[in-house]
């Protein structure tokens, strides 16, 4: 601390000044020189805010507690939505902090870390934690916690959604969202955060706008930059921010004009032990990769739009057009984006592409059991089922497995008790089978519950709901773009109860 604390000798006889004396001192300013911090009693200090903020200095002085006795109007009103952001890695270290207003001590994270300790799984940490002075809203993403500090009422989803945008932005800029990447690009991440929030209120969250202000790193540019000292900060003005279509930057130019659309459908299903469908639905998403020059105005129409029951759009999609004509009309952002997500009408029966024959037995005598799994194709519309992966969460007492797979390979993680069987392509002629014995903890009772299977799969060139893109038209630009549509079906949350 740059200013020395005035020390009081505890042995010295000290007379408390009377009211008159105090008043005298107060008015004349004599008698006590103002310092930021006075030791008024051994190990008891009176200091001002400046002192209180200088935590390292306080630590040096041996201060353990601070009592705020300040009175006054300012600084008590908090008006920001998001006060601070901390990034926490899986082992509980804070590796980045950003404050949009006065600094909130890191110690506020202790409440969160405590909750993190308690939770068995990082996913189980409550997203909203209330502490005496703050609220902590966090998300868990890519093995990192994004923890924001809130002081006042704010819609929690608002913060959560924003934090996810931050994660997506990092992913978008650096290819992945991990501790190493963030640490390596800490300055740029910091600049991004600065642009994304102003006084805790989201300012620019559109990737196209941000990329105009702060250019994403490329290998070439980073080489040039290190040599010349030039910067990644765009000197051009983010026109997108000012226009009515903030998601698209101006002056886009490509030599090859391409627009690709991926229709990805996921089957969410729960099958019970007899194989009957308890619940099944199809969730779809249209991912787009549009690299078109200028200001193209696209129209995408479906053969059978009535299939779509519930939709949500990228802000670029004209909602009225959809309401009246069931076509997607939009001026696309530049690059990759999610055009729409949809839910297929629940009345349509969902075709379940695979079936599982399973049996799992634990011997009454304990210490052992048998597992037998067979996976076969069911309603696949003539396409091949690929990338089949079966995950089994075994009961806690299963120590090890000794199995034999006719196709693919399996792994068993003893710590998490997860059995993963990677099958690959399904061959209808020769169904893959996995069987063998399980060994249990000795002495442990026979597990009561049966594990459930999670299945992952992929079918290329098929949208299981039957959704088909009719055509894509472009207006507003003269050139002929290259257009492509791809369909793919995946298993979403596909669970088989055993």
């Amino acid at each position, binding site marked *: 601390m740059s200013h020395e604390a005035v020390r009081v000798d505890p042995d010295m006889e000290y007379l408390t000044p009377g009211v008159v004396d105090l008043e005298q001192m107060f008015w004349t300013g004599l008698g006590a020189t103002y310092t930021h911090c006075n030791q008024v009693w051994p190990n008891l200090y009176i200091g001002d805010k400046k002192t209180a903020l200088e935590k390292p200095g306080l630590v040096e002085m041996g201060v353990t507690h601070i009592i705020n006795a300040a009175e006054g109007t300012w600084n008590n009103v908090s*008006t920001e939505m998001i006060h601070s952001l901390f990034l926490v890695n899986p082992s509980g270290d804070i590796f980045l902090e950003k404050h949009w207003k006065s600094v909130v001590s890191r110690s506020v994270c202790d409440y969160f870390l405590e909750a993190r300790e308690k939770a068995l799984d990082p996913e189980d940490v409550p997203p909203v934690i209330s502490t005496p002075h703050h609220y902590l809203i966090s998300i868990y993403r890519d093995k990192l916690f994004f923890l924001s500090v809130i002081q006042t009422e704010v819609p929690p989803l608002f913060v959560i959604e924003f934090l996810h945008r931050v994660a997506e932005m990092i992913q978008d800029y650096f290819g992945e969202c991990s501790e190493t990447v963030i640490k390596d690009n800490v300055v740029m991440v910091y600049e991004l955060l600065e642009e994304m929030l102003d006084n805790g209120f989201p300012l620019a969250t559109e990737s196209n706008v941000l990329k105009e202000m702060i250019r994403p790193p490329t290998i070439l540019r980073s080489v040039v930059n290190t040599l010349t000292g030039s910067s990644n900060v765009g000197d051009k003005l983010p026109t997108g921010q000012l226009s009515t279509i903030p998601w698209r930057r101006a002056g886009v130019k490509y030599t090859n004009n391409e627009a690709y659309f991926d229709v990805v459908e996921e089957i969410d299903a729960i099958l019970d032990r007899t194989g009957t469908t308890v619940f099944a639905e199809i969730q779809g998403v249209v991912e787009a990769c549009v690299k078109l020059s200028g200001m193209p105005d696209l129209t995408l129409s479906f053969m059978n739009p009535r299939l779509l029951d519930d939709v949500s759009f990228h802000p670029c999609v004209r909602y009225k057009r959809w309401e009246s004509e069931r076509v997607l009309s939009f001026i696309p952002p530049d690059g990759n984006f999610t055009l729409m997500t949809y839910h297929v009408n629940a009345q349509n029966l969902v075709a379940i592409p695979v079936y599982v024959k399973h049996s799992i037995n634990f011997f009454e005598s304990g210490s052992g059991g048998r597992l037998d799994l067979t996976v076969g194709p069911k309603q696949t519309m003539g396409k091949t089922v690929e990338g089949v992966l079966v995950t089994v969460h075994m009961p806690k007492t299963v120590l090890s497995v000794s199995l034999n797979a006719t196709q693919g390979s399996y792994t068993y993680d003893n710590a998490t008790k997860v059995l993963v069987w990677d099958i690959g392509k399904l061959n209808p002629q020769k169904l893959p089978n996995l069987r063998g014995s399980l060994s249990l903890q000795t002495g442990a009772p026979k597990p009561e519950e049966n594990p459930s299977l999670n299945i992952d799969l992929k079918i290329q060139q098929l949208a299981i709901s039957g959704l088909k893109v009719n055509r894509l038209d472009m207006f507003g630009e003269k050139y002929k773009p290259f257009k492509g549509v791809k369909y793919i079906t995946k298993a979403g949350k596909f669970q088989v109860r055993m």
Partner: protein
Amino acid sequence: MSANSAFNEEKGGSSNVGEPEYGHDPASGGIFSSDYKRHDDLKEMLDSNKDSLKLEAMKRIVAMIARGKNASDLFPAVVKNVACKNIEVKKLVYVYLVRYAEEQQDLALLSISTFQRGLKDPNQLIRASALRVLSSIRVTIIVPIMMLAIKEAASDMSPYVRKTAAHAIPKLYSLDPDQKDCLIEVIEKLLADKTTLVAGSVVMAFEEVCPERIDLIHKNYRKLCNLLIDVEEWGQVVIINMLTRYARTQFLNPNMNESLLEEGGGEKAFYGSDGDDDEEEDKDEKDKKKAEAPSVVKRKPYVMDPDHRLLLRNTKPLLQSRNAAVVMAVAQLYFHLAPKAEVGVIAKALVRLMRSHSEVQYVVLQNVATMSIKRRGMFEPYLKSFYIRSTDPTQIKVLKLEVLTNLANETNISTILREFQTYIKSMDKDFVAATIQAIGRCATNIGEVRDTCLNGLVQLLSNRDELVVAESVVVIKKLLQMQPEQHSDIIKHMAKLTDNIQVPMARASILWLIGEYCEHVPKIAPDVLRKMAKTFTNEEDIVKLQIINLAAKLYLTNSKQTKLLTQYVLNLAKYDQNYDIRDRARFIRQLIVPTDKSGALSKYAKKLFLALKPAPVLESPFKDRDHFQLGSLSHLLNAKAGGYQELPDWPEAAPDPSVRNVEVPEWTKCSSREKRKEKKVEKPFYSDSEGESGPTESADSASDTASDSESGSEESGSGSESEESDQQSESGSEEDEEEEERKKKKEKIKAKKPVPESDSEQSSEEEGKKTESKNKPRRGGSDTESGEDKDSETESSESEEEESEEESEEETKKKKKATVSKPPSKPPKIDNKKEKKEMSLLDLDDFDPAPSLSQVTPLNNFLSSSLVTDLEGLSLTDNVLSPTTITPSGNLKTYELLHRITGEGLSVEYCFSRQPFSPDPHMVAVQIQFTNSAASEAKNLHIEDAKLQSGMRMKEFPEIETLPAGETVSVVMGIDFCDSTQAANFQLCTHTRKFFVSIQPPVGELMMPIFMTENEFKKEQGQLMGMNEITEKVTLGEKCHGEHAVIQRVTTAANLSRVPCGSDKECRFAGKTVTSGSLVLVSVVTKDNGAAQVTVNCEKMVIGTMLVKDILQTLTQ
């Protein structure tokens, strides 16, 4: 990657200095000892001349800040670089400043001037960023500077800067709440802003600073509703939440009648059934009663306020937003505001959010849980979406369970129970416990399945997992309390469990059950007590208390068998460590064991202990949570968070809906409609809310105007030449459309015109003279002439002059009479018209007390050269001075500024008088005529709060103190349009009201005539070739043949004077723009077959283009 290198460098650099590697804990004392050394080299780098070194240093410093290390001692070195040219360095310095300024206030002041300079920068983004940083520096001393900057930025022409100003408001407010009043003024101003960019931010500021000032919203309500879909996502959330509160104070409960109907209808049966949903419905019922009261009193059918409907309609599409926060905001709006029948639409969207990240799921489920209590039917179709997967996180599972329980009813309970059965087998024990609780709740709520559930739970008692058993016991206990007599065997079964079960809560529950129903199990109960007495000392406190209870109850019912046991237990308890237990033992002993001293109470001991206890209600923890606004943090925590705004109750009677009425100038509306068709693509496509009705209509068009003006200002802000001209030409075409509109209007005016003229006293006389002078050659375009209508009257200025002088004299006298002694009773209507005319005269004089002096000067300036040659003895100055030029205001095109209806009786029209505006020759004179057709007088008519594009200026007319009812008054104001057809927007204020109005000039009014010789004309024209010349061919309209007609039309369309020409096939006109004085030359060459060629030479290409179009238009008609 460069940042990457910076980061590494930083590490490397520190090791060079031989410093220990930094720990993650900034609080470690190490900083103090070793920091200085490291920072020395940073300081050196910052002081260097090379930007690259500075950048490097700043990157290292920012990296330090990011890792939470203290870099405050570098402040002096860093702050010096605030004016650095390198943008990235600058940005990083800003980052540093914002972080440390609060700690180093004095030094921070050094940077302020840089930002102040930045605030004046022509580049809007620099202005915005300067304001952003300035307002983020938390230094109290600069509060006045910030206030000033915010005020200024709030009226910046760039919407982006205005947005930044809105952001700065809460920052300043938190720094100094005393500024509240000033800030509210700024907020009020920004709330009136019509751009989507500003809307979200200003509402945020409103919410932070003055959420209680709901009155500020009235005028902007419809606009906000209409803009909503185009506002960026974050702004949408804030606006929707605010509007929810607003609607709760302004509209009536849409469900009040519905609930009335239900009351008498099917719901009755529900209440009859044994206490099924009573509890849950209770609040509903209360609500109903509350709502019922006013409706009964009024007996008036509920009609939804159109504004209420507008809100619901305009928010609905946002349910399709990709942003979960927006969807949630709309969902809560519907939940709190929509009629019951319509709330259903949100279910689908909320269910969709369940596919999102687990945090989103968590929040959504919390809200769905609350909603599903009140509106169960809404989510029933989606029951299966709440089924639980083994891979869900526990907190999600529990919430889903909650929702499933809330959704359970007679029809779906069997499915739900079957589902619950699978859950009970889960490995997640917390979840299993929650499931058992859920089963218990289903059983209490739905009588039909109570036995099934009970049996199922009893089966669970033999479960191997103790937690499961314990939870079951607790639930069974609660269920049994409902019908104990039928289930003595279950109680017996549970009595046996005391041997095995160790979970205290379960043991306590069993003991309580046995004690409570000891009459049903007379044999077992004493035995249990015996066993318990044995283990008493080892039991948990909660169990001990129940043992004492059991003993007491048995003593009262079966004292023969249990007297000793009870004594024993009480003695043990007497020396227990826990004072609760000691107290309880003493108390019970006094109560049940009769002694001499025992008071009257012991007589009632049995009644006390064995009273019939009401069955517990297993209710959802989410019950009644909806008194918090859904989607809010407070709702999630079920506790009021700081800054939470209570959701108000519906008002008993609707407040006056007219407060939301907004005036829309009639003609703006028309033109914006036209534009809409024209510029479909340009428009923000999402808000094309066509085909609305009622008040929506006007609001709708208001939003259109808004977005148009937005795009306009943006482009002008961007400053790129080509863009600008693009835009201008575009607006030129718009101009065309407008022109057409105006034409039509003019036609109307023309049709009407004769009437007022014949009313006037001198009219017949005048008419005669006019006819006389009809064929006289036309003199150099006097202002009046060009302003004349198509009557094709050419008046000799002399005669006109005389006349008008007479007239004016006469009228002035009259006027004086009128003003001096105003007749208390109004003369008949016919007179009104005349008076209107008189008024205009007099007022002009009033306005300019020395017209001769001030007006001559500017005229001379531009007449100088041409006067001599071309005036042919016509004293132009006099002509201009003569009030006649103003008198026939009917000849000039008048436009409506404020309609009688929107103006609440005050109607305002304006015309371009084509007079030089004496106080400032660079301004266009606009004559404004107020007519007060209301019953009461209007006071203090004046202009306020002009919103002008940059460069534009306005000279307001002096305030009109009173305008009595039925009177008309004219004033002149000047506007410098900066040679553009951008509208001047301002507020017209009376003592009671403010009206937003705007004046948009046709391009022809942006110029004034000058006089040239033929030679001069040719010379000038020769210099304005190429880009500056625009030539168009045109076929003249039928009525437009002949030189005379052409001249007439051109001078009507534009304020130009004629230039003499040798050929009668060619007509030439000259003028210059009012602001910049650029020459405008027009020549029309006619051919025999009715074809013609129009050439416009003007160095302002935009003006040229627009003018050509206007002239073509007028010639083809």
